[in-house]
């Protein structure tokens, strides 16, 4: 991989960190701690309550979250719009299967999509157990100096590093 060519497509990490921190501080001033796994619950609440309103009313996990008419849902929807806008106005190539995955497991779309479905399932199940995700618990929590966010952050980075080594084996080194 040509490093010079690829790095010019992406923003350098330091100015990007200033930009993201500006947005996070804006969110703390206008809403509260930013979160994205809560947006999944709001989405499901909005969807499920249209068919089973009594079920949603009696479920504590839905009771503690607002439905789709909320900042939380607007935020995740906005993230999809932001990703779309950034993708359409930039030159970053979009792939359905990451290169590193293709080198290791081949170009089967079904295999990759099944894997990300399972991965998505696990991360959201886990995030709801902890009460937050990379953003809602690690980034928001650590910004507020919360021990929960730092504890979660150390574990997710350490375990993800071990998992990636097990998943990709020596493929990652060759790339």
């Amino acid at each position, binding site marked *: 991989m040509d490093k010079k060519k690829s790095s010019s497509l992406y923003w*350098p990490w*330091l100015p990007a960190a200033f930009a993201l921190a500006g947005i996070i501080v804006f969110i703390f001033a206008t809403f509260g701690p930013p979160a994205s796994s809560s947006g999944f619950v709001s989405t499901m609440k909005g969807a499920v309550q249209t068919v089973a309103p009594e079920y949603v009313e009696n479920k504590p996990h839905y009771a503690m979250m607002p439905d789709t008419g909320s900042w939380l849902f607007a935020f995740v929807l906005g993230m*999809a719009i932001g990703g779309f806008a950034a993708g359409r106005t930039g030159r970053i190539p979009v792939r359905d299967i*990451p290169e590193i995955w293709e080198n290791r497991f081949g170009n089967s779309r079904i295999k990759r999509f099944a894997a990300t*479905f399972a991965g998505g*399932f696990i*991360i959201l199940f886990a995030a709801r*157990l902890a009460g937050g995700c990379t953003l809602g618990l690690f980034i928001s929590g650590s910004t507020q100096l919360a021990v929960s966010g730092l504890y979660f952050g150390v574990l*997710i980075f350490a*375990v993800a590093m071990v998992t990636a080594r097990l998943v990709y084996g020596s493929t990652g080194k060759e790339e």
Partner: protein
Amino acid sequence: MGAQIWLGVFSGIAFGFVIQRVGATNANIMARAHLMISGDIPKFMLMAVILSAIGLLGLESAGVANTRVLPTSLVATGVAGILFGIGWGFCGYCPGTTWAAAGEGRMDAVFALIGGLAGAAVFAHLHEFFIPLLYDPFNVGQITLADWTGSKPAAVILLTLVFGLCIGAIHLFWKEKNGSQTP
């Protein structure tokens, strides 16, 4: 209420735009970060936290911050962190990036998003079983670094030092394996 929706959409668009441009929505880059090949995304995340913590300190002194510290449950937060790490290392997406990556047009992220909705629904169904079992008995409360350091500014300095050391360590140990980035 209406203002909150527009603030949410605006914040989301800005957030999604930045994380796409820095490469966080690219599962290939995320895998390379986890494999200690490319350190830009972890450095970006840690630096964003340092700057946000300093900014939040400013908001609090101005009296306009809305904070909510999540409690630490030694078992639930720990088990969740391990499960989350497995899922993150396996698929290269986290909850926030799936939305931006799906919007960007990455089909594997669309499936991660659908899987995430299913995972959230299953947890919501089992909340009454798991929370009293894993969360509540081990909940040590809304503890923060300021409880140890005595003051918030001191805690922000401590956080900045520790995260700064992590960024330095990533700079030293996350290397291109083909030797294009020799120390």
